[in-house]
């Protein structure tokens, strides 16, 4: 087993949480493998009612089937634990709906080599970005960005991006605890800052969602914003897991 761990420590694990994605998953997997030769893919089937797990397996990925729907946060933590258990030291979080471009993975992973623990692919860091979001959503994202900036002392242009890369320390942290509720990506970012992880942001291009609407209504967004605010305030007062590197 140790020989396998040895090779896996340099390999990149792509973690894809998927809920009822049998339609888009095959193309996403094909494109991933075609673009990036030296990767392993794990698909976490988050209690899907369709054949997501079968499709993932047929597409060459490892498929973890959750017995019921845990939400993206739960699916992701399963992926992180899988990664840590199997000796991976780098991982990328990737969408199953074709929103993310495999061609951007290399750019996303690059800062890990320079000592970053968590890399966020930002839709807005770049002027040439043409990613469209609704007005309410954009405003909510901006307020979140300001909140995170005040509490973490770091500037992020895209706090809720689901296109991220993780180094060994981030994997360890998130395999132990990863937020479970909606907008977990923002919460995870705050956790990473509070734990003294080095967080970097790189501009990435994203495609507009292939199918389906972003499932957010403004009142739901408002509720989760307030919840998040509370979480953020509490997190800040928790003792850091390790000292921040100066």
């Amino acid at each position: 087993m140790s020989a396998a761990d040895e090779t896996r420590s340099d390999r990149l694990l792509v973690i894809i949480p998927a809920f009822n994605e049998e339609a888009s998953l095959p193309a996403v997997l094909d494109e991933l493998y075609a673009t990036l030769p030296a990767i392993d893919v794990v698909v976490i089937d988050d209690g899907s009612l369709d054949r997501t797990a079968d499709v993932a397996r047929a597409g060459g990925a490892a498929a973890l089937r959750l017995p019921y729907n845990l939400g993206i946060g739960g699916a992701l933590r399963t992926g992180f634990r899988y990664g840590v258990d199997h000796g991976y030291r780098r991982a990328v979080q990737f969408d199953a709906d074709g929103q993310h471009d495999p061609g951007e993975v290399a750019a996303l992973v690059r800062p890990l080599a320079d000592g970053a623990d968590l890399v966020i692919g930002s839709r807005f860091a770049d002027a040439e970005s043409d990613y469209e979001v609704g007005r309410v959503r954009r405003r909510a994202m901006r307020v979140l960005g300001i909140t995170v900036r005040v509490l973490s002392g770091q500037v992020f242009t895209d706090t809720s991006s689901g296109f991220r890369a993780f180094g060994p320390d981030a994997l360890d942290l998130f395999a132990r605890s990863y937020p479970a509720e909606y907008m977990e990506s923002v919460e995870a970012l705050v956790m990473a800052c509070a734990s003294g992880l080095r967080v970097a942001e790189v501009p990435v291009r994203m495609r507009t969602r292939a199918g389906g609407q972003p499932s957010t209504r403004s009142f739901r967004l408002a509720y989760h914003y307030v919840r998040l605010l509370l979480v953020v305030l509490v997190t800040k007062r928790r003792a850091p897991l390790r000292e921040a590197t100066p």
Partner: protein
Amino acid sequence: MSPRAHIFVFLVTVGALVFILRLVRRRQLRAKYAMLWVSVGSVLAVLATFPVLANRAATLAGVDYQPAALLFGAVAFLFLLVVHFSWELSRLEDRSRTVAEELAMLRHRLEQVEGSDGTDDETTSPPARTPEPGSAQSD
């Protein structure tokens, strides 16, 4: 309190106590909750039998309007209980989430072991990009 009301309250309290004891005997309540409810039931039964006691306790605490003391006690007790349940529920949710994750990983491991007959560990690693024998080629 009229004697009739007195008897009515007493009967209701005793009924509640019997109900709790039955739950306990059938082992449908965890011991800690059983103890809690049995003691609450007993206190209520005593108070229902001797309402004077409640009034005296209220006067001792400096409450002028005695029923208010009883209501305050009840609200405070229920509030603490509900907070405790929320805490317990959060913990249980956390645990069931961990169990679900563990199950997904074990299931995957099992599929791997069954797929490769458990002979060579190398073949059980995920990167092999060949469809597993179980997945039928439908197209």
